[in-house]
């Protein structure tokens, strides 16, 4: 056993003492006086204390001291080669920066605490059901119903306070109606979150005492500033929400925009829900998932303890729902806690971070190449240090310190990109008021640091081992032997460059596919008119108008709209195509007499009889229903799509056949061609065109006036707004064009295309430098060989060919592997490609031509240099 610590110190002292005595004894035997001998022994030994110090240092502070020395040495080295250093730093800054940027987006959504005071104890509550689940949902099934919230609030023993809220869109009245985000909140919402009311008062328990009891509202600070000019006299004024007057009682503290990711404008008591909905649905009575529950845990209570506590309460409610089992999920509160978001977000996060990781990897590959090249030019220096007794581990440590220093410095620079880039992405998104906190905190800094360290190991380890694997004599003579020399290293560099080419190929193929996907959206014909089609949606229902008054609004408005000079045709439908999905199961009569009916899940629209002519949607068999037929009693007429007919009645004439939806029966009068009504890339799906208000699926379907104009829509929209205001100034108007919807449909593709394109070009730039470097280096190593070949009569053409072959092999290998991986990856991106083949020849061709062109330039320059080698010179060189 090796003695440690104090005992070892003592032993070392004793050993030195012994030495001094022995040496003194020897000198004495040679004739010196005892005192002289002792002094001479000490002299010969040198400074005893300094030796002890060296021994001491060797054990304790050596590593720290070494790190300092290594860092100082590294900095000196960087100063000596500024081009290398700047290239490396930029590469790392971009690589780590983009990766951290993508991470910080996910992080601010799913990890960062809510922007409230003392967020550590704030937690969200969701329910996860298993077994038989039969409940209404408004939002997501994981949310709580009102009765469930009340049970949890009153019976739990783990929360100090439990609040609930639901965010909804409403129309803010006044002279110019406009949409506003309203949160229905329990009256303990602000106190639970410890949000201060800066002006006026917050909710009190009385405000939530009964349904429709208190029509009061609290404004967000931002909304108060933008819509009320920060008027301190706003308290007591009235805000019209869906034409319902609410007294403004307070303004929340600055900076608070609610607990949803979209910043909130007004809060009203949760008990105002039925009133706000004009009594059309009462979510305080129904068992419906609609409430986000957030609470403040008692001190010392963990989320899992609270989950257990709340699950017991939920199980008691399960007793009224045989076959259902509820588990309550209490999580530290973030914006993205809903399990639905977590599940989908997980996949997206994996993709996004995979992309970021690829960028870092390519950056690392580039740096590794730079370092390998540098290692070769430092062989002499390293050889000398080895000769002077530096251990190999020590040298590897030194080289890794350099990598680490570079990487962390690059990572710090990358934080600037990490903060700017997400804002740029958010700017591209269609929604406003995203309240994502992207400021770097410990989590984001930690991620950047971890990425930096991993990157340093990824690009630094192999060159460090390679550079120090020297035999002393050969290093001093500055020449290579076998696989340890430059040849082996150039092979490693070749592999690295191949990986880089592969990575950039992957990114570029994806980018090209996304760009082609976007083109496809522009040229893709959904099967009906898209150019100049405007949807005009109004909200008379939300304003509390009865059906007669709603009808009057449309009767007054439609002739005026139809009379606009550029309007060619108009019709009514429940909504514009591409505006979300409405789907219902129907029971189609059996193809065989007396057979069981088949259930078919089908998307649908409710349309007027002239919908088909206005939208130029062809009826391939039979005819559209007439307005008279639609209004007649008995079986309602209906038009179905080709796919619907084929599914329901294969090989039979579908005309005149029936299906049922609830109590209503329908008879097919016509077959419409399969078109894309929901999304562009989707395969043909069953579709039903009901007459208006015939599906019985609720009044909430709404009405959209669809206008087909001849050309651009920009000039028409202003006149439409003016007409609507003439008819009823209280109406909030929403204008949408199919072209806008299509642009929105293409947005994820556009974002993905931009990201992969940007990263792909970056990666390609790095890969080209890599190819150029490897080939040039290969040429410089083979100068002698090439000189001999030329001297022996090889033509310049064959020499060029030799060099080009080397470069093309490396680049081609990478591109080949990249293409294979890209083919696999693009299969996963299908939904973003709008039916475009993941192996789209045009996209692949563009990328291959681009890569070939760029790689040729990188290869040809050194090849031409090789051809100009003068054998007379190179043969004399060594």
């Amino acid at each position, binding site marked *: 056993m090796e003695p440690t610590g104090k005992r070892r110190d003592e032993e*070392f002292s004793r050993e030195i003492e012994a*030495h001094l005595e022995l040496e003194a*004894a020897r000198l004495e035997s040679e004739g010196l006086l005892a005192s002289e001998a002792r002094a001479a022994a000490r002299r010969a030994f040198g400074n005893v204390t300094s030796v002890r110090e060296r021994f001491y240092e060797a054990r304790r502070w050596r590593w720290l001291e070494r790190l300092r020395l290594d860092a100082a040495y590294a900095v000196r080295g960087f100063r000596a080669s500024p081009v290398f250093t700047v290239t490396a730093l930029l590469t790392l800054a971009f690589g780590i920066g983009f990766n951290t940027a993508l991470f910080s987006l996910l992080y601010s959504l799913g990890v960062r605490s809510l922007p409230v005071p003392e967020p550590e104890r704030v937690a969200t509550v969701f329910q996860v059901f298993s077994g038989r689940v039969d409940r209404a949902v408004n939002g997501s099934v994981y949310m709580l119903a009102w009765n469930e919230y009340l049970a949890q609030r009153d019976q739990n023993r783990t929360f100090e306070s439990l609040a609930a809220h639901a965010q909804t869109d409403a129309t803010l009245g006044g002279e110019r109606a406009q949409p506003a985000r309203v949160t229905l909140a329990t009256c303990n919402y602000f106190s639970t979150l410890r949000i201060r009311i800066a002006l006026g008062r917050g909710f009190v328990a009385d405000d939530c005492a009964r349904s429709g009891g208190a029509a009061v509202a609290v404004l967000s600070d931002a909304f108060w500033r933008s819509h009320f000019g920060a008027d301190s006299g706003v308290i007591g004024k009235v805000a019209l929400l869906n034409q319902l007057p609410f007294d403004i009682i307070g303004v929340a503290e600055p900076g608070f925009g609610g607990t949803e990711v979209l910043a909130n404008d007004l809060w009203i008591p949760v008990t105002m829900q039925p009133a706000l909905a004009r009594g059309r649905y009462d979510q305080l009575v129904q068992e419906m998932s609609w409430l986000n529950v957030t609470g403040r845990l008692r001190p010392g209570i963990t989320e899992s303890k609270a989950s257990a506590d709340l699950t017991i309460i939920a199980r008691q409610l399960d007793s009224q729902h045989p076959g259902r089992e509820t588990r309550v999920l209490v999580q530290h509160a973030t914006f993205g806690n809903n399990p639905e978001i977590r599940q989908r977000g997980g996949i997206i996060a994996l993709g996004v971070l995979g992309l970021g990781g690829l960028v870092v990897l390519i950056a690392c590959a580039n740096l590794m190449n730079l370092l390998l090249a540098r290692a070769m030019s430092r062989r002499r220096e390293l050889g000398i240090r080895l000769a002077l007794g530096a251990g190999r581990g020590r040298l590897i440590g030194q080289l890794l310190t350099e990598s680490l220093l570079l990487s962390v410095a690059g990572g710090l620079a990358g934080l600037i990109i990490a903060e700017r880039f997400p804002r740029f992405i958010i700017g591209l998104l269609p929604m406003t008021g995203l309240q994502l906190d992207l400021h770097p905190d410990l989590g984001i800094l930690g991620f950047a640091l971890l990425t930096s360290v991993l990157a340093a190991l990824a690009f630094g380890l192999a060159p460090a081992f390679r550079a120090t694997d020297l035999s002393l004599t050969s290093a001093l003579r500055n020449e290579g032997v076998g696989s340890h020399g430059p040849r082996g290293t150039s092979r490693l560099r070749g592999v690295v460059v191949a990986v880089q080419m592969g990575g950039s190929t992957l990114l570029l193929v994806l980018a090209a596919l996304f760009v082609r996907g976007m083109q496809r959206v522009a040229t893709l014909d959904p099967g009906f008119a898209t150019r100049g089609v405007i949807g005009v949606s109004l909200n008379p229902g939300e304003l509390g108008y009865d059906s007669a008054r709603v009808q009057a609004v449309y009767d007054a408005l439609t002739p005026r709209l139809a009379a606009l000079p550029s309007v060619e045709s108009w019709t009514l439908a429940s909504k514009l195509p591409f505006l979300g999905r409405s789907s219902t199961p129907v029971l189609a009569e059996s193809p065989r007499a007396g057979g069981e009916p088949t259930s078919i899940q089908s998307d649908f629209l409710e349309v007027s009889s002239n919908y088909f002519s206005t939208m130029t949607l062809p009826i391939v068999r039979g005819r559209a229903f007439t307005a008279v037929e639609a209004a007649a009693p008995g079986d309602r007429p209906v038009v179905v799509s080709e796919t619907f007919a084929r599914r329901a009645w294969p090989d039979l004439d579908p005309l005149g056949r029936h299906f049922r939806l609830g109590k209503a029966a329908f008879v097919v009068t016509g077959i419409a061609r399969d078109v894309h009504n929901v999304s562009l890339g989707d395969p043909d799906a069953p579709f039903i065109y009901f007459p208006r208000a015939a599906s019985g699926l609720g009044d909430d379907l709404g009405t959209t006036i669809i206008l087909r104009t001849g050309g651009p829509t920009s000039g028409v929209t202003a006149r439409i707004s003016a007409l609507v205001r003439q008819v009823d100034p209280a109406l909030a108007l929403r204008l949408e064009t199919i072209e806008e919807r299509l642009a929105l449909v293409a947005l994820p593709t556009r974002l993905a295309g931009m990201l992969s394109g940007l990263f792909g070009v970056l990666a390609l730039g790095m890969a080209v430098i890599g190819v150029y470097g490897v080939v040039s280096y290969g040429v410089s190593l083979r100068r002698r060989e090439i000189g001999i070949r030329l001297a022996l009569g090889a033509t310049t053409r064959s020499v060029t060919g030799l060099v080009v072959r080397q470069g093309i092999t490396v680049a081609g290998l990478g591109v080949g592997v990249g293409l294979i991986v890209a083919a696999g990856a693009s299969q996963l991106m299908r939904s973003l490609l709008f039916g475009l083949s993941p192996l789209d020849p045009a996209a692949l061709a563009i990328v291959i031509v681009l890569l070939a062109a760029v790689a040729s330039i990188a290869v040809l320059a050194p090849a031409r240099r090789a051809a100009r080698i003068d054998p007379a010179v190179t043969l004399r060189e060594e």
Partner: protein
Amino acid sequence: MTTRKNGERDALLQGTLDLLVLRTLRAGRRHGQGIARAIQQTSDDAILVDHGSLYPALQRLERRGWIAAEWGTSDNNRKARFYELTAAGSRQLAREAGRWRRLVQAVARVLGPDGARG
């Protein structure tokens, strides 16, 4: 370069001292002072071992398992720490000695017969 400074300070390169220590111990176990003395004598006083560098070198060699140490009594009846070559140490000695000879030959070839001009 930092190594230049080291070169001026050390009379003997670190790797070389290790080699000499190992070679000396091949003759049998010795204590530190004995090792220093033996090197000096064998080299006809051409190499003066800095006693202050000897002990850190011994520590280093011991840590690498090339030599082993234990306390014993010297010829003149004094307590001292004795060092002994291990099997790994013998192998290391053979390796290092070979490398050293090759280096010396190589340097000699480069310097040539009229090395004085170099």
